[in-house]
């Protein structure tokens, strides 16, 4: 369940990535890796009853 956020992030980055090359492309990839890593951590934080996110609530919104 906690892969929802990384999946959404990966999709957004994939669709935004096009048209970059050279050093800009490498910087974009490096920042994207950081963003995906943080999204995995955010997912873990949500699952450990962190007050911030509620992923079970997010899933139930998609399932309605």
């Amino acid at each position, binding site marked *: 369940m906690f892969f929802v*956020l990384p999946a959404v992030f990966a999709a957004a980055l994939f669709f935004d990535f096009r*048209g970059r090359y050279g050093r*800009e492309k490498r910087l974009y990839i490096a920042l994207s890796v950081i963003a995906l890593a943080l999204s995995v951590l955010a997912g873990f934080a949500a699952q450990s009853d962190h007050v911030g996110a509620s992923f079970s609530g997010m899933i139930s919104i998609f399932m309605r």
Partner: protein
Amino acid sequence: MGEDKITSGAGAALCIMTLMTNAYSVMPGAEAGAGVWISHIAAGALALILALLFAVLCDAFPEKSFFGVLEVALGKFAGRLIAFFLAVASLLTCVVSLTVFSRFVQITALPQTPQIIIPGLVIVIAALSLRCGLRAASGSARLLVWFSVAVFLIYVIFGIGRAGLSLTAPDMTRVEPLLSGGGEVFLNRFGALPALMAIYVRMPKKGRRAPFFAAIGGVAAALCIIALITVATLGAETARTDFYPIYTAMSVRGVGGFIQHTEIFACIAMTLCLFFKSAVCLAFSDDMLSGVFSAERRLGAAMPLALICAASTQLIYRDISGLRGMVEWKSGAWFAVALYVAAAILPWLGERVRRAKTGKAQ
């Protein structure tokens, strides 16, 4: 950046909207008690001085980007170090603002909604708006700033009747809370000051100082008045203990008998301001990081930076008292403020030294 130019008026409006983020929810510096408005004056004065140092530096090299100016003034290594620090500081202040706002929305209106939804939406839309540089954001800011002005006027004019100005008399025997409160106010309200240079360098070279400083000075005055009215309405003790005292004071406002729940206008104004602050901080950080890593900026990296900020809103605090500890960061506030001051003074000094050496060589 050659094509990404904005008008002076739009730039000033964008500065105002960026600095007014969360102006109607939390009130940093409340530990200063009834004298919190003095803390706001101190923070506003410091912001104007640092903005002047940055502006003088940029005006010395009008054809260069802000990163280019830092490199010329400080050299390659120190310039990149300062640029990296300013980029991280801008992103951090953006994350804290997003977190405070999302928590605020969760408490007041959307308790069942995952907290990442609101900051995620706001900052992703801000990242998408940067596809045509800051022109889209600045054009929107020029129109929407009047809404923010209207909310401010509602707060002040229709709050005067409920205000007891005698409650705002400060305790001048204890100066330390006023100063430490000033540090908190500076970090929370003016933490995005370096990011405003992303706006300044895109404004027309001639006559950009006046609107730029008028915007910052105007916001500093407005924030001071908001703090004054809040304490006059709620009293110093309630303003100190309530995490969202300005919102609480706003919720007892009405406009005659025909506009109720004026706190909803405050929520709308804060959402708009958060969008503009996100856009400006992302644009600035993108500029700085592209320079630090020598990446020629064509399409930019605003989207991954936006997603980093969105994910960080879930990670930077444990519970509401932890979030409050971040906003009211007394122990570290002056250290952080000192870093900001150093980031402004060092390039300015570096440019003076460079100019003196060039003059001697000739």
